[in-house]
């Protein structure tokens, strides 16, 4: 009896302690002025790693960034445990409301590649949107399917099963890729949808870019999606994607830049930043699968506001020149006005 009493007392104490700790939690992790803490997307991490020493040199602001994933970036900026969050997907209306006065600013741009493992096929395989959608829906299951052969005349495609490999962790790459497939295919849009993690009806998942790359390397006939920089750095064979103009495009800097031709001259809202599947007028070079990635900052940022304004402005202007060597594409001029206006909203606030 005594023992039961003691145990229940201890549990009670634990619960009380937990409730107390929960209340004081949000007051932690705020460093002093002159330094900024951010977290979120892994996709722009190579670029942000270049920015950190450069921003320290140019602005004297010390930046700490941990690549924890877009979801964590949104969650932590909503909880205000960091000074800025980064996300590959623009915030949904619900998320924006939950964030209570946050601005979402596009600060980097890059293409997604479609690497595959087909030993014996030396010529680059050409794919297009409908074929990719059908592969990821499980409708096309073999490399020598008629639809793939039609795109690759003269290539001797083997009778190999296609193994779809996707990201099992929530990822901006998945968002960008499903965004493209849903734009192309109504069936994909209704059956799978667009998100940082979705239910692909076929294939196997792996964690992180390195994870999917590992599975593709060890699986004959595998096909996946990773950012172009990763593919190029690891010398993967990736597919050429046929665009609306009939060109077979590569996800290099010029390919992604060409895909921006249909943006309005002055972007005024985020939904206008649709760059997947560009129209034929963008030319044969335009690469159809690319994505913006965003920084999320609270409009009332207290004594961090001045540093945040300085850093984000620097990132979307001078910081862009660090992009091309990493296969990040400099932001188009058309978003500058939108970005400057949003940056100005970052104030000390109440």
């Amino acid at each position, binding site marked *: 009896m005594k023992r039961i009493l003691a145990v229940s007392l201890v549990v009670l*104490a634990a619960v009380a302690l937990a409730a107390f700790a929960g209340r004081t939690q949000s007051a932690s992790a705020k460093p002093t002025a002159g330094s900024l803490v951010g977290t979120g997307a892994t996709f722009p991490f190579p670029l942000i790693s270049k920015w950190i020493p450069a921003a320290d040199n140019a602005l004297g602001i010390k930046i700490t960034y941990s690549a924890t*994933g877009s979801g964590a970036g949104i969650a932590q900026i909503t909880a205000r445990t960091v000074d800025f969050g980064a996300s590959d997907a623009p915030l949904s209306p619900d998320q924006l409301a*939950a964030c209570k006065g946050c601005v979402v600013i596009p600060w980097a741009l890059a293409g997604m590649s479609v690497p595959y493992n087909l030993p014996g096929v030396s010529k680059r395989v050409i794919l297009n949107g409908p074929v990719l959608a059908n592969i990821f829906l499980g409708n096309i299951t073999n490399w020598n399917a008629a639809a793939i052969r039609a795109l690759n005349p003269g290539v001797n495609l083997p009778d190999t099963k296609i193994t779809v490999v996707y990201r099992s962790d*929530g990822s901006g790459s998945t968002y960008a890729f499903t965004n493209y497939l849903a734009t192309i295919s109504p069936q994909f849009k209704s059956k799978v949808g667009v*998100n940082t993690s979705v*239910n692909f009806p076929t294939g*196997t998942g792996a964690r992180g870019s390195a*994870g999917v790359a590992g599975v593709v390397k*060890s699986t004959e006939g595998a096909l996946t999606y990773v950012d172009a920089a990763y593919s190029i750095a690891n010398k993967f064979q990736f597919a050429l994607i046929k665009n609306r103009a009939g060109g077979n495009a590569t996800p290099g800097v010029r390919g992604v830049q060409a895909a921006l031709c249909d943006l309005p001259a002055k972007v005024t809202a985020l939904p206008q930043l649709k760059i997947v599947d560009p129209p034929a007028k963008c030319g044969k070079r335009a690469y159809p699968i690319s994505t913006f990635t965003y920084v999320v900052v609270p409009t009332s940022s207290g004594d961090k506001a001045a540093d945040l304004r300085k850093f984000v402005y620097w990132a979307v202007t001078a910081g862009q020149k660090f992009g091309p060597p990493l296969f990040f594409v400099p932001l188009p001029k058309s978003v500058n006005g939108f970005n400057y206006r949003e940056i100005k909203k970052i104030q000390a606030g109440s």
Partner: protein
Amino acid sequence: MTSTAYENPAAPESDLRRRGIRLGDLLFRGIAVAAALAATVLLGWIAFKVFDLAWPAIQDFGLSFVWTDAWDPVTNEFGALIFIYGTVVTSMIALLIATPLSIAIALFLTEIAPRKLAAPIATMVELLAAIPSVVLGLWGIIVFGPWVRDHLEPWIQDTPLGWLPQFSGEPSASGIFTAALVLTIMIIPITSAICRELFIRVPKDLTDGALALGSTRWESIRGVMFAYAAPGIVAAVLLGLGRAFGEAIAVNQTIGNRNAIPSSWFEPGDSLGSKIASEYVGATSLEQASSILYLAAILMVISLATNLVAQFIVVRFERARRAV
């Protein structure tokens, strides 16, 4: 010099020295109580926090979450059945293979192997447990998975077992079966080490007695050693099961991560631990995040229940044995 060495042990100690001992005693007791309390408080706190953070999902989906066969972050439909299935099936396959193997290893080391051979082999088997699970998972992706796909699974399909729907379909490098085999490798060192310890402790008189009565070696192992060590073996097996239930990373790397209950064990699925590891960080909505914590709560309940059952069985066996 000599006076200290031959001090009369019966003589009363000096006051100062006694107090010194008492202080040490008190300090020791304080530390011990604090450590025990801290562990209990921590358990309570973690349990509270997991349920607290899962609360939105528990309210939204209720208990039906447990048997809902859906996980779609796009439409915010969440359920745990896919992952409970993955966790239970991978762990059970692992248990089914690992238990006889572990007992066989333990018997070999205690009964059959010459002492010179037993010690290094025992060390090697225990070192298997020292491989970090993430490294084992990596080996699972790169080496073991492809081997399972190219050799082991086609071979199983050629045996009479291949007629079972669980072994049908296309062999695959990552799936329920591959994950189960990796788990098997992870739990063998634990169960075999405990079993070896148990077999060593079986009193020599008992086995000698059985042999003297004319039983063969196998009969003495079966009738005496197993009977004597049975509660311990059950506890060892359940300890291994607990390890298998909770393993996240190695399973995550080898199970294939598909949100579906596969008809064949060769196909990809997902487990509770694996899902938590892969999706919590990237969760984009509150529903998704709290649903993942709901999965964590379920996993915690399953693990605690396994532990309690293990303790219960051990107690029952002890009682039964004493009654004999």
